């Protein structure tokens, strides 16, 4: 009897989350058009209409070579984001977004700071020392999101059965594209989305609300 229970527990542990009858899978592609010469950036596909608790895992945005890597992350409301510094110099990560203002101060290579993001929305992240650094955090109401691969393909499993809205988000698109979505029990729903990227990074201000100083001017 004990052996049978152990086998059952191990089977559950090794197979991960079992497919449930009240869930389905959403699979599809995001066709992205972008101006020539622009390097691809992450595209996040997410579903809105229901809420789920956040996972315990902390999502990381690394600072390396004066860039935030990745420049776009998605988290579930309540989840934390860590900001490890991988550069041999200081960074001062901050956000001016009213939804979630923060200022991590300046910290050196090998150290990290983290902050929780409890409310859904979009948060811009910058470095007060290096104006070229910018990232975006999408805080979503549930865990049903994915980052599309280089070919624009994505798959989101464990989506509750029902009628929802699916979005594709790019930092360079004027706004996310959306489509209605109907998820049926145990079925795979195919979705095709098209996103036009055109916006290049717009200048931002430092944490005091001022234009960044031109290093050439003060040298």
């Amino acid at each position: 009897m004990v052996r049978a229970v152990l086998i059952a527990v191990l089977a559950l542990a090794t197979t991960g989350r079992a497919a449930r009858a009240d869930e389905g899978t959403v699979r599809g592609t995001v066709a992205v058009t972008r101006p020539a010469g622009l390097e691809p950036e992450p595209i996040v596909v997410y579903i809105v209409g229901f809420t789920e608790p956040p996972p315990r895992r902390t999502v990381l945005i690394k600072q390396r070579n004066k860039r935030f890597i990745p420049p776009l992350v998605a988290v579930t409301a309540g989840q934390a984001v860590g900001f490890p510094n991988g550069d041999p110099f200081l960074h001062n990560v901050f956000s001016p977004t009213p939804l979630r203002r923060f200022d991590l101060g300046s910290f050196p290579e090998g150290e990290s700071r983290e902050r929780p993001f409890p409310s859904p929305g979009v948060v811009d992240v910058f470095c007060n020392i290096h104006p070229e650094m910018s990232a975006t955090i999408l805080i979503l109401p549930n865990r049903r999101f994915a980052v599309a691969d280089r070919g624009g393909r994505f798959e989101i499993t464990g989506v509750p059965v029902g009628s929802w809205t699916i979005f594709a988000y790019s930092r360079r698109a004027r706004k996310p594209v959306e489509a209605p979505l109907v998820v049926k029990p145990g079925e795979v729903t195919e979705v095709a989305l098209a996103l036009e990227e055109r916006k290049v990074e717009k200048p931002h201000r430092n944490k005091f609300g001022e234009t960044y100083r031109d290093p050439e001017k003060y040298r």
Partner: protein
Amino acid sequence: MTRPTRRSRLLTVASALAALLCAREAQGGRTHYGWLYGTEVNPERGVEIESWILQENGKDGEDETLAWWAPVVGLTEHLELAIPLEAAYSAEGGEGSTNFERFGGELRYRFNSPDPLVAGPITVLARGAVKRLVQARSGMRGEADLVVAFEQGRFHAEVDLGSIAERVSEDDSEVELRPGGGFSIETVSLLRVGAEAYAELGVHGETKDWLAIGPTVSLTRGRFWASGTVPIGVFGIDTAPRINFAIAF
């Protein structure tokens, strides 16, 4: 060299005003009150130049003005260090003099996360300072504060339990309790108004007790914050106006 035209001068003024209005909230170690310390500290490695000008008028026939100036450095997310220099003018019976009074170091430790969201509505800061007295070569002064603040939405209130112990010479020393409390409400665009009460009460030595209550105003703009109060004496003093201001780097 060409002289600036009226239009270019107007543009300059308009740009400065626009920059001021677009400025964001500073994150420095500010206080919303005149005589009370705040519970915020500078971000790690953040530097702020902080200044105070305070007056004690009509304190049992004595008038005092103190100017306090210090660079304040965020050592960690919780701890900041100030290195104050203090100059004072004091007059008793019509004769006055200005002196370089004290210098030293002080540490301010915030027990809670620097992130208001993580910290919650109640935050606590402890402050300790050690200062040399310039005119009494063997003199020392110690200062300590425990500040407890409550913040909910636009409302802020706090209690500051302060004390000082000063030893001028072997037979001249004093100990004072310096309690205070106040509240502040954010009105528009980071301008806050409120009221505070503050007292200096002698425990040991020749001190002059006083208590004053008055309105408080504070403002944060970009890298600048200022706070001030004009308390009226309840006993032991006529007025005790004070202004604090700082600029962050």
